[in-house]
């Protein structure tokens, strides 16, 4: 696989546009899937995954062929996803009180709209529920949990993708699992 990928990359570097199409074809589903899990929205996932391939193409000369191509590609995509998630967050202070709602701050407002009532959650189909639970995870746990349990990547590879020390990745996996457990209670 990696040998074939590097062969195609060398062709892209020589100016062969079509060789890149083969690379996109090889990785499209995996990359789209990661973006979809991170963002929870099909349009956005398509947009960001395509953007990730465009950035990979433009910066292909910076890719080190001794390393795994998928790691490099996933790094581009997860960075774009994290940026997109951050941009969607309101920049006002979350713990500021909402005018006219005594004692309620932004956290409780978001909790009130972001989390669905229990009956609603119980009616969800499995696939919908999975995406719902992932979406409720704080984003720094979300990325490691997706890469660990949905992409089934080893911790070391996750550390390479996210450019985080291995110890940090382990801590985030632990906290992410703990957050999931608390969210889901006894299913």
């Amino acid at each position, binding site marked *: 696989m990696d040998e074939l990928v590097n062969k195609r990359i060398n062709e892209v570097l020589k*100016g062969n*546009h079509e060789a890149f199409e083969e690379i996109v074809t090889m990785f499209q589903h995996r990359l789209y899937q990661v973006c979809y899990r991170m963002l929870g929205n099909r349009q956005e996932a398509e947009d960001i*995954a395509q953007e990730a391939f*465009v950035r990979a193409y433009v910066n292909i000369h910076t890719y080190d062929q001794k390393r795994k191509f998928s790691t490099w590609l996933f790094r581009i995509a997860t960075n774009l996803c994290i940026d997109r998630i951050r941009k969607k967050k309101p920049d006002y202070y979350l713990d500021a009180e909402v005018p006219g709602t005594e004692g309620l701050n932004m956290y409780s407002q978001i909790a009130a709209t972001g989390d669905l009532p229990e009956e609603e959650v119980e009616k969800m189909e499995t*696939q919908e529920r999975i995406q719902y639970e992932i979406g409720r995870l704080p984003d720094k746990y979300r990325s490691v949990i997706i890469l660990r349990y*949905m992409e089934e990547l080893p911790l070391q590879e996750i550390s390479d993708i996210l450019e985080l020390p291995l110890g940090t990745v382990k801590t985030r996996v632990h906290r992410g699992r703990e957050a999931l457990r608390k969210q889901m209670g*006894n299913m």
Partner: protein
Amino acid sequence: MNTCRESMIHYMHAYLDGDISRDEERELKEHLAVCPSCKEMMDELQSAVSFLQFAEPVKAPEGFVSGVMDRLPKEKPKAGIHRLLRRHPLIAAAAMFIILMSATLFSSYNNQQFSVTKQPNLVIEGETVVVPAGETVKGDIVVKNGNIRIEGEVDGDVTVINGSKYMASTAIVTGKSEEIDKAFDWLWYKIKSTVKGLLPTSDTGKDGDSHTDSE
């Protein structure tokens, strides 16, 4: 709340990461057998992560690949000059403009008419411009197809195109003094001053320049 949890929680995660020693694993299992609250927590952790593994693979939509290909920048930086010209008619037009302009400039070189920058206190004698002794001309002087004789002072540049310059012993020129009498020099001088005027509004400057070099 069970007090053993804090010490056991680490083992649980280490176990789930496959990052646990044989001894630690035995210790954990023995504890889970006797402690219902730790057993419950371990079960919840395991079911939470195994629930995620029910996730069905998600596929990129139809047309995803062609969508990427459409979004790629059309030119790689090292593209050949021919492709560049074919795909960027604007640059080609700019190059053509410069070529045509050069031709125009050559013909204006051959225009033999005498001319001089208008400055007060310059004296013109036929086709010779005189800066009289004891006078100071403030500003640049350009003389075309004629001569200049400097007896006084010029506070600026003196350029003589297709002509000669005489400097009296009393002459003073504070700026640059240049004589241009070869067609090439003249062309170069003209391009320099024209391009200087064009540059601020030209955004294809770099490509245009590298192109004219190859002409």
